C-alpha cells in the first residue's frame, strides 16, 4: 500500500519541519481536504461549481459559532461545521442540480456572490473582513494541547484528511460511486437504468458541500479565527485550479494539486508578486497537454 507509506511519512514529517513548516503543512492538508470535497461534485458527478467557497466558509463560520455559542470543543465545532455546510448545500443543490453545464456554473457563482455580499454586510454577525476571533482551543475540551500549536494543528488536519480520504476512496469504488460516474458520463443511460439523475446529482452536491464544510471547520479550529474573505470567489476558483492541475479523475488528485500549487506559490512569492501568473501558465499547459491532470499522467505513466 503506497498510500499507507505516504501516510506514515507524513506522520513522521514534523520531526524535520520547523514551526512554520508544520503550520504550512497543516494549511495544505486543510485545503487539500477542501479540494477533495469539491471534486465529489466536479470529478465524480461532473458538475463544475464555482461556489464552493461558500461551503468552506459556512463550515468555518459554523465551527466558530459552535465555539462561541455552544461549547469550546473542537470536535463539536467540526460537527456544527459539517451541519452548517450540509444544510446550505442541500438548499442550494435543490435548485442548482436542475440545470447543467454553464447554467449550473452561473447558479453556483450567483449564490456564492450573494453570500459573500451578505457576509460583508452583516458585520455584527460575521465580523466582516476583520472576522471573528476566539482563544485557541484545547484538543480535548478544557484540557490537553492547544490547537494553535503548529504541531497539534498539523496532526488534527492530517487526521481529518486521512479519515476523509479513506471514506472518499470507498465512495469512489462503491456502487454509488459507479452510479455517479454513469450520471456524469451518460445521463440518459443512467435514467434508463432506473436512476433519478437529479436526485443523484443533488446527493453528490450535498456530500461535496459537507466535505468542503468539514475543511472549513478544520481551518477555523486550527486558526482560531475566521473572516468574510473565506466567501471570496477566489477560494472557489482555487478548488477548480487545484483539481484541474492535480487531476479530477482520482480521489487524491485534487489534494496533490492543492499541495503543489500552495507550495509552489509560497516558494516563488519570494521573487514574484503576481504568483497567479506562473500558476495560470502551468494550468494552461496542463489542460492542453495532460487534460487528466498530474494524477492522470501518473497513472498512464504507471500502466505504460
Amino acid at each position, binding site marked *: 500500500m503506497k498510500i499507507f507509506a505516504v501516510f506514515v511519512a507524513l506522520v513522521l514529517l514534523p520531526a524535520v519541519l520547523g514551526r512554520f513548516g508544520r503550520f504550512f503543512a497543516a494549511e495544505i492538508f486543510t485545503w487539500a481536504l477542501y479540494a477533495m470535497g469539491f471534486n465529489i461534485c466536479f470529478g465524480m458527478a461532473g458538475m463544475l461549481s464555482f461556489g464552493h467557497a461558500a461551503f468552506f466558509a459556512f463550515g468555518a463560520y459554523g465551527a466558530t459559532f459552535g465555539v462561541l455559542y455552544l461549547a469550546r470543543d473542537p470536535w463539536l465545532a467540526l460537527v456544527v461545521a459539517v451541519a452548517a455546510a450540509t444544510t446550505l448545500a442541500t438548499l442550494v443543490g435543490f435548485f442548482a442540480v436542475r440545470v447543467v453545464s454553464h447554467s449550473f456554473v452561473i447558479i453556483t457563482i450567483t449564490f456564492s456572490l450573494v453570500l459573500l455580499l451578505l457576509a460583508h454586510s452583516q458585520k455584527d454577525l460575521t465580523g466582516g473582513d476583520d472576522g471573528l476571533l476566539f482563544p485557541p482551543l484545547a484538543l480535548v475540551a478544557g484540557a490537553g494541547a492547544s490547537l494553535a500549536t503548529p504541531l497539534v494543528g498539523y496532526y488534527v488536519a492530517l487526521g481529518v484528511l486521512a479519515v476523509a480520504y479513506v471514506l472518499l476512496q470507498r465512495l469512489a469504488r462503491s456502487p454509488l460511486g459507479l452510479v455517479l460516474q454513469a450520471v456524469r458520463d451518460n445521463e440518459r443511460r443512467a435514467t*434508463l437504468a432506473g436512476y433519478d439523475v437529479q436526485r443523484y446529482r443533488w446527493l453528490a452536491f450535498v456530500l461535496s458541500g459537507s466535505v468542503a464544510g468539514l475543511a472549513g471547520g478544520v481551518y477555523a479550529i486550527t486558526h482560531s479565527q475566521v473572516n468574510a474573505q473565506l466567501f471570496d470567489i477566489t477560494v472557489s476558483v482555487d478548488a477548480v485550479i487545484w483539481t484541474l492541475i492535480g487531476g479530477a479523475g482520482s480521489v487524491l488528485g485534487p489534494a496533490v494539486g492543492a499541495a503543489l500549487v500552495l507550495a509552489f506559490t509560497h516558494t516563488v512569492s519570494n521573487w514574484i508578486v503576481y504568483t497567479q501568473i506562473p500558476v495560470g501558465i502551468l494550468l494552461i499547459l496542463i489542460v492542453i497537454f495532460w487534460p487528466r491532470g498530474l494524477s492522470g499522467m501518473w497513472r498512464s505513466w504507471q500502466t505504460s
Partner: protein
Amino acid sequence: MAVVADELILETRGLTRRFGGLLAVNDVSLALRDGELRALIGPNGAGKTTLINLLSGLMRASGGAIRFGGEDITAWPAARRARAGIARTMQVTAICPALTVLENVWLAAQRSLGRPSALASRSPQVGDRARDCLRLAGIVARAEEPAGSIGHGDQRLLEIAIALALRPRVLLLDEPTAGMSVKESWDIVERLREIRARERLTVLIVEHDMEIVMQLAERITVLHLGQTLAEGTPDEVARDAEVQRVYLGGR
C-alpha cells in the same frame, strides 16, 4: 399483481405528442397483451420512435393516457418507469463508454435490486445478475472490456443486456438491428427468441426489415403520420390494402 393470460400490460388511450404544429403521435390507442411480441412498423417519420419515447417516459405526452399493469403512469418520469419494469433500448446506442461492459449492465442490475450504497463494496449478487444478462445477450466474453471499445453489433447487444438487467415486464426495442449487417441482424433475432424463451416478457419492437418483422412478430401495428393505420397478425397486415398502399407497396 396476478398475471392473467390475456391481461393488458401496456395500454395507451388517445396518446398524442405535438411538436409545434406537427402531430408526431396523433391519438394512438395501443394495447399490448402480457407476453406478446408486437412489431411497430411504418414509414420514416411515422412517429415510431416518438411513441417509444412516450412509453418509456423520455418524452411527455401532449395528450392521452398510458396505463401499465392497470396503473396510470402518464405522469411518471422515465427512471420510475424503468424501475417499475418498462425497459427500452435506444436507436442510437446509449452506453457509458468509459465503464466496462459488465459495469454498464451492473448499473441496471443494481437499481433493480435496491439503492446503491455509498460505502459498501459492490455486491456479488448484483454482479451475478449482470453476468447472467450478458450471457443471455451473448456477450459475456466481453464483460471486462471498456464498453466504448467493443464493436457496434456488440454494443447493440449490450443495450439489450442492460434492459434485461432491470428485470423488465415490457421491453421496448427501438430498431435493435439499426446499422447492422444482415447476418448480425438475424443473430439479434435469434437472441431475442432465446430471451423470450427464458423470460416472460412483453416486447414492442421497431424494425424496418420486413422479413424480420414477418418472422418475429406475433402482431403488428402500423403507424402512418402519427396515427394507427392498421393492426393485426403479420398475415392480416400484409394483406391490408391501406398498408400496401402507404408502406409495403411503396418500398
